[in-house]
């Protein structure tokens, strides 16, 4: 059985056809052709599929697509305004945090959802917030440094929430 789901994606009303067993990750990647959420493990371990669901970072491979009806989903694609990067994106780029980059969209989403809740965190809190996102290239240090720089305003004021 498949169903048409209505939800809000990056601020836009969106419809996607979804099967009963499809995950949110499959709905985004296969249903909508949105490739920024990556599939690293498909079992909630690696965090490369992280998106922002109703304001919280979730691993989209562990969310049943049918449960997102009427909800709000943000991906890294929606955080950029024209060519203006979100301060977290800018920080990751300027600090050279991505190496192969496969974990980066998930890292951005995890970091943005976190700073939306906690705009002045400690370094320990940032490490904790990113602890569900694996980077096999080993670039954790720069991701943490970049988030700390962003919350200190090095790349402009942080927007309130995901809305541009």
């Amino acid at each position, binding site marked *: 059985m498949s169903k048409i789901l209505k939800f809000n994606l990056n601020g836009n009303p969106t419809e996607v056809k979804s099967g009963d067993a499809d995950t949110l990750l499959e709905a985004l990647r296969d249903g909508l052709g949105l*490739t*920024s959420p*990556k599939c690293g*493990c498909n079992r909630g371990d690696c965090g490369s599929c992280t998106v922002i669901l109703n304001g919280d970072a979730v691993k989209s491979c562990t969310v049943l697509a049918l449960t997102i009806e009427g909800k709000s989903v943000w991906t890294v694609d929606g955080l950029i305004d024209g060519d203006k990067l979100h301060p977290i994106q800018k920080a990751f*780029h300027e600090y*050279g945090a991505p190496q192969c980059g496969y974990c980066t969209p998930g890292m*951005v989403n995890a970091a943005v959802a976190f700073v939306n809740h906690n705009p002045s965190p400690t370094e320990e809190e940032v490490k904790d917030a990113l602890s569900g996102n694996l980077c096999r290239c080993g670039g954790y240090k720069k991701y943490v440094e970049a988030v700390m720089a962003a919350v200190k305003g090095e790349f402009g004021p942080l927007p309130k929430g995901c809305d541009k």
Partner: protein
Amino acid sequence: MNSVGKRIPRYDGIGHVTGRTQYVSDVAMPDMLTCKTLRCPYHKARIKSIDTAEAKKAPGVYALITKDDVPHNLFAMVPDHHVLAEEITRYKGQNIAAVAAITKEAALDALAKIKIEYEELTPIIDPEEAIKDGAPQVRPEGNNHMFDGSSVIRKIRRGNVEEGFKEADFIIEGRYSTPSQEHAPLETCCSVAYVDASGKLVIHSKAQGLYFAQGDLANVFKLPLNKLKFVGGTIGGGFGGMNSIHTDHIAGLLALKTGKPVRFHLTREEEMLYSTIRTPWVFKFKDGIRKDGVITARRVEVLHDCGSYTELGLYAVEKNANMIAGANLIKNLAVDSRMVYTNKMPSGSMRGFGVNVGQYAEQVQLDRLARAVGISPIEIRFINAFHTGDPNHTGNPIAAASTIETLQGVAAMSGQQLSDKYLAMSSEK
């Protein structure tokens, strides 16, 4: 000198932080089929019979292939590995059959309809057991075979180790071993293959060596090189694991068979359990050392667990043999480096493969020598260090030695006090 010493943004960094970078597993094409493979559930088995008739008729199936559908069923750096298993399977997870279907579910349903009868055979897993006489044979050529055909051991002989041991005040023996290691790139291996309008087979590949893969698979497909195009691109990590072919061959065969685009994307479980790895090594050292810290003789026996097919194992053994004795001038040296087949996934390349595993062993052994003599670990490295112009272990003169300067740098960075004698040392004699 516009960039040296300056912080410059990566040319592809914006794509990464905006999610716009397209990786191989992001490549999608209209009408694309999904590939899944039937993998052997045993470490070693004989395939007594295989019946794919019902599976081929399953809904949504466009093609199902076994060994008989492969034009030339051997591939890899040393082409001794079967694309799809012949009668004997040699490691758990070896590909036996592959299906291309409209969805992942249809592909898996079809695989479940293959009727296959196995005879489970006795595997050999432990490399030290596998080299013994009478051990179960992994391959008909024998467990210690090397496919270049010249010798089953890579040897280095310098001076006379027995004489060297006589000069020593202490004899120190050590056995060291390293385990398996999986590369675990975040993007698992993936290929998207299709036949383009000119009849050329195109493969979007995660291969780290596109021309290696192209040459290798031109044989498998029996295609001229101008009919086989590899498309590389940004990949979500490789770390050496993508020097070996895991999906390109099967995706390509199914694209040729169906005329449609085919994606073969490994699951995390497949990547972890069945792709090439850094395989285990065992190192046995016997060293003679004088009270003044000079190593008088060294004998090293190396055993590389190559898994069931050669892949890069032979190359790793040769690299290892050259490096295993370390950055030390040793006048009496005997190295025997060899590999052995076991019923495991093949040995691939991984970050300094063959070298850093040996250096782990060699460095721990050096510390033990230092303790036996009663000098500090850094002193023993200065005392035995290569100088510029010294012959390396295979006799070639070293053009620019840097061991001494590296040790001085390490001491400075770690806050270790060095005596004037060592501070004044230089690689230039």
